Every structure is written in structure tokens, then in C-alpha cells.
């Protein structure tokens, strides 16, 4: 889960990293008042979870509170790479002497975190790394040791950062560990004309698996732009909406991803990813079907289940009960294989719903669902 810039700023501040004074609002009137409190001149920054805000016109200076209100009015509601701007942050301007880049990222292949730092901050670090790799220091961090002042000094030295950044590097590691973050990035980290080290912009990605011990952001940060995704999330479903016409339900992340691909291979486009997991109870099946059927783009639905631990007759019972609960309005193709598949198929045959048909193979089921979507 990514945090908004203003949330990242708040975390940095709590961990003793200097940040510009700033406040957030969702109204132009609020922007005017905040600008007045901050002394008049401000930078108005769109709060969206995507990069390239500056280029899209989502970050603009304002000379006084009236200009801040006008600027906020222009930025609020803007679309930046598919994200609608709902809030702006107003920050006091900072007099920049130099810009740096620092981050801690997960190195998946090495199974540990990596410090990445560069004396060339303010721009796209991937671009710097591609064109001038020697300007970017990449230093692995031992999880048992963490980033001590000595370690931070080695990182700063390798990247050519001034010694004053050592304290920020140590505190940023504390943010990563204490907040269960998978990424903390400050870009740019600046040295002001007064010689202070300030985190001007930041990005933090939190680990969704750590929700049981990190509860502060709750649902605010996990908000869904898409209404169907929001509804699915409220039902506890593992659902991602896509832009196709074949609705897909399956058990197990790998098998569902594979089902999407096989449907695409048949010339149709998947409308969603929905993993109902190993248990696949009737309730989950009913919830899943109701979410998918309420997507107006869906023309047919494919249920692809391999009964491993779950028996297929239990899955079939679930589908039958779901059919009692949800009014089926679009054709449903079901493929059951594995444990007790014959009994599962018999259960569906006995129900004999006019819109439900069965297929014996995954490839055959995908072909049929694609065909139905094309002709419905």
C-alpha cells in the first residue's frame, strides 16, 4: 500500500527528519487559509499516488493566499495518469542549495533491503542509474545490524553525500523498520541555503501483510478508486477489476492469473481477477458472482476451479447456493477438475440452470466463455 506524500511527510516528521511546514486540504478556500498560516508564499502539490505530478502540472508555486486558492482550484479534480486529485498539500517554499536522492528498497532476489543514494537528486533515479550508474550507490543492509551511524556514514560516502545526511539515513531506516515499509524514498533530499538537510518529497510503501501490527492508516490509505473494487474489498474478496468482458473466478492466485491469460489467448479480454482461495465457500462464491455480475462490461463468466484440498462437490454446492442468492443474468461456464470432480459436475447437472454450462478442460472452458462473450 502506497502512502500519499503528506502521509509520508508526517511519518518523516515523527521520526525526527526535517520536512517543510505543510498542511492538506480538499478545498480551494482551505488552501487560501493554509497559505495565510504558512506566511503567504507556498507550493501547491497534488496528492496522488503516482509519479510525474510535476510534468502533469500538479505541482505549482503560489505567491500569496489568493493565488494559492486559484491554484488549488485548478489542481483539485485534475486527472493525473488516471488518478483524480482529491486533496492538495500546501508547503512552505524551501531555498535549495543542493539536491540528493536517498531510499531503502527491497531487493527481492537478494532477500534483503538495499540503500540507494545519489548526489544527483531531484530527477528520475532510474534515469540517472541508466545513464550514469557510477553516480548511484547501491549498498545492501544486513537486517540484523540495520543502518547504524557507521553504516550510514559508509552509504553517504559511497554516494558522495555530505556528512550532515548521516542522521537522516539512520532515521529513514527507522521509518522503514518501525512502520513495516517496503520502500522509503526521499527525492529530493535537499540542503537548504541555510545548510539544513530537509526531506522535500517522499514516497512510502507499506507492507499489507503487516496490517495486524500497523493499524494507524486503516482504510484511509487503502481507499479504492473503483467502486466495484471498493465493494469487493468490503466483502473481503481478492479482486482486481480489468477492462475486458469475460468475468473470471478461480481458486489460487497462480491459477486465476493463468485463467486470465488463457482467456486472452482465446481472443477475449478478462474483466477481472478474482481469487476465492482454497476454502471457496458458498458465501464467497455468491459474493464474487454478485460483484462480477454488477460490472456492466461483463458478458460471460468463467469459473475455473481445481479441487486440491477443497473437493469439487463442495465448490459445486457453493455455486448452486450462490445461484439461489444471486440472480444470474449472464452465461456462466464452469470447469471443475481434481478432487471429486465427477460428483461436483453431477451436482451442477442436477441444478440444470439454463445459463450454466460445464466444460471439462481449462482451455475448453476459456474458449467457450470467450465465444459466449462475443455473441451475447
Amino acid at each position, binding site marked *: 500500500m502506497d502512502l500519499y506524500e503528506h502521509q509520508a511527510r508526517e511519518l518523516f516528521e515523527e521520526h525526527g527528519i526535517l520536512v517543510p511546514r505543510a498542511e492538506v486540504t480538499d478545498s480551494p478556500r482551505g488552501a487560501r487559509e493554509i497559505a495565510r498560516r504558512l506566511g503567504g508564499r507556498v507550493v501547491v502539490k497534488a496528492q496522488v499516488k503516482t509519479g510525474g505530478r510535476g510534468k502533469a502540472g500538479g505541482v505549482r508555486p503560489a505567491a500569496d493566499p489568493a493565488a494559492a486558492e486559484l491554484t488549488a482550484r485548478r489542481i483539485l479534480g485534475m486527472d493525473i495518469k488516471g488518478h483524480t486529485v482529491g486533496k492538495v498539500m500546501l508547503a512552505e517554499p524551501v531555498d535549495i542549495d543542493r539536491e540528493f536522492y536517498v531510499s531503502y528498497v*527491497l531487493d*527481492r*532476489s537478494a*532477500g*534483503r*533491503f538495499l540503500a540507494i543514494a545519489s548526489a544527483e537528486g531531484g530527477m528520475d533515479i*532510474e534515469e540517472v542509474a541508466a545513464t550514469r550508474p557510477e553516480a548511484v550507490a547501491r549498498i545492501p543492509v*544486513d*537486517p*540484523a545490524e540495520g543502518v547504524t551511524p557507521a553504516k550510514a556514514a559508509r552509504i553517504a560516502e559511497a554516494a558522495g553525500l555530505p556528512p550532515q545526511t548521516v542522521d537522516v539515513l539512520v532515521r529513514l531506516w527507522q521509518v522503514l*523498520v518501525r512502520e*513495516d515499509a*517496503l520502500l522509503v524514498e526521499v527525492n529530493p533530499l535537499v540542503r537548504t541555503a541555510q545548510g539544513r538537510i530537509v526531506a522535500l518529497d517522499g514516497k512510502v510503501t507499506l*507492507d*499489507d*501483510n*503487516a496490517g*495486524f*501490527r500497523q493499524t494507524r492508516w486503516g482504510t484511509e490509505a487503502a481507499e479504492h478508486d473503483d467502486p466495484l473494487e471498493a465493494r469487493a474489498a468490503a466483502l473481503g474478496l*481478492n479482486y*482486481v477489476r*480489468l477492462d475486458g468482458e469475460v468475468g473470471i473466478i*478461480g*481458486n*489460487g*492466485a*497462480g*491459477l*486465476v*492469473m*493463468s485463467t*486470465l*491469460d*488463457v*482467456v*486472452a*489467448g482465446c481472443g477475449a*479480454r*478478462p474483466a477481472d*481477477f478474482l*481469487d476465492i482461495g482454497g476454502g471457496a465457500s458458498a458465501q464467497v462464491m455468491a459474493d464474487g458472482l454478485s460483484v462480477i455480475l454488477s460490472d456492466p462490461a461483463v458478458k460471460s463468466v468463467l469459473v475455473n476451479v*481445481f479441487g*486440491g*484440498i477443497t473437493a469439487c462437490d463442495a465448490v459445486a454446492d457453493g455455486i448452486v447456493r450462490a445461484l439461489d442468492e444471486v440472480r444470474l443474468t449472464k452465461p456462466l461456464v464452469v470447469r471443475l*477438475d*481434481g*478432487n471429486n470432480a465427477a460428483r461436483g459436475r453431477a451436482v451442477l447437472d442436477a441444478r440444470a440452470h439454463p445459463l450454466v454450462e460445464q466444460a471439462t*478442460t*481449462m*482451455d475448453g472452458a476459456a474458449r467457450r466463455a470467450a465465444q459466449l462473450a462475443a455473441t451475447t
Partner: protein
Amino acid sequence: MAIHLTKESRILVQGMTGGEGMKHTRRMLASGTNVVGGVNPRKAGRTVDFDDREVPVFGSVHEGIDATGADVTVVFVPPAFARTAVLEAADAGIGLAVVITEGIPVHDAVAFTTYARARGTRIIGPNCPGLISPGQSNAGIIPADIAKPGRIGLVSKSGTLTYQLMYELRDTGFSTCVGIGGDPVVGTSHIDCLAAFEDDPDTDLIVLIGEIGGDAEERAAAHIRDHVTKPVVGYIAGFTAPEGRTMGHAGAIVSGSTGTARAKREALEAAGVTVGATPTETARHVLALLRSGA
């Protein structure tokens, strides 16, 4: 033979007395697996009855190893306690820890995989179905009756795709199937399993199943090119996954241009791996290669 797990394996179950632990210990025992004990400090000294088989509960992994000579542990404990459980197993000197638990924070996985590696404990998982050497032993939750013993080795990030491929190739059979898990940080990689299968005299052909996210498959491809002489058949899931969205598994996410299915397939094909377009086609490639005696 087989890899990492044989009929000689003596298995402890951490979290055996919980719901999932009970259910799957029963299944493991039913498939002939030598489960020698459970671990739960609050229930130490008791025994649990699984259909007339009495399994003792130990207060710690250390005690369990001392009493039974266990060399494998299967971990079912909830996410909040998994880190402590795995560190304890590594401290006790267990050879293999199979971590089934889904939802373990990445910082915990980083900590225990690093710690275990330094102590010579192999971790499989977390967030994995475990591994099975059909007819010999079953450490985890893979249904034991899908496929018979045989000479195919399988390594996969995904549980259900493992089941699907095992089912498609059930009559040919498997030496060992390893589900390495779908989390961003796992203890055992595709490469570890490829190397073990290459050395296993009872494995003739290797099936590698990957999915979007990270670069484990690309690294596996480089390893295959340089070190694997046995035929490898691959399958990759997630060609239709949008950028920046997590697809079920915590690690299944395309970030920018990295972790795409296309890049993985191309890397594998460049290394001489036959990659199937669907699980069924992948199984057909396996059968064709085995028939041609490659």
C-alpha cells in the same frame, strides 16, 4: 531419491494443534509421511491422536529434535508468531523448515531467511504449499493423491498451478514437487531447486512454473543456460496482469517495466526452455520431450 524430502525425512509440525495444523497433519500422516511430533510450548508433554496414530507434542523444536531425530519442520503458526517460530527452528539446527503460513510481514521474512541461511537451515516458503515427493513424504498441504511417483521434478511459485500440472501429468509422475511460495522474499529459489534436480539421479526432466513479479525466473533462465543439462519445460502466469497491481500473491506485481511475464518467457526461451502457452500445452510439451527421450 528426490530432492529435499525423502521417505527417511522425520517431520515436526510447528502449530500442529491449531486448526490448519491438525487438518494437514492428518493428511500428511494419511499419505504415509513420517510425522514424528508437534511443537507447542503450552501443550508440551501431551499427545494428539490422529486416527489411532499418537503424535507427541514437544515444548520446543530443540526438544523435538532431541527426542525424535527430526530433520524437517513444517510451520503452520499464524503470521504474528511465525518469525519467532522459524528463528527457533533454525537455532535448534533443523535442516529444512517449510513455512506454509500466508501473510508474514516482509521484514520478518527477510530476518528469518537471512538468519537461517547463516545457520545452514533451508527455508521453503513462506506462503507456499510445501513440497511432496510422491510415495515417499509430503511436507505441507499439497494433496498427496493427485499424482503418482515418477521422474519429473517440478518447482513453482504457485500452489494451484502446481496442482494443475501435477494433475495433467499424474500418470507420468513426479520425483519431487516444490512450491517455493509467492511472497516477495522466499528462502528457496527456482535456482536452488533446479540445481538439486540437476543432481538428482531420479529426475529426468524439470518443470518450472513462474509468475509475474521480481526477476527470479530471469535468474533461473541464466542458471539453466549455464548449469542445467536436463530438459526444462516452463510456464509463466500473468501476461494479462496490469502494471502496479498485486495479483493475489504478495509478490505477484509488475513494477514499471520489471517483472513482466513476457520478459520471463523470453529469458527462458533464450536459455533453451520450452515454454507452454497454457498449463495443458505445458504438460503436452513435457510428454513430447519424454517420449522423444530428450
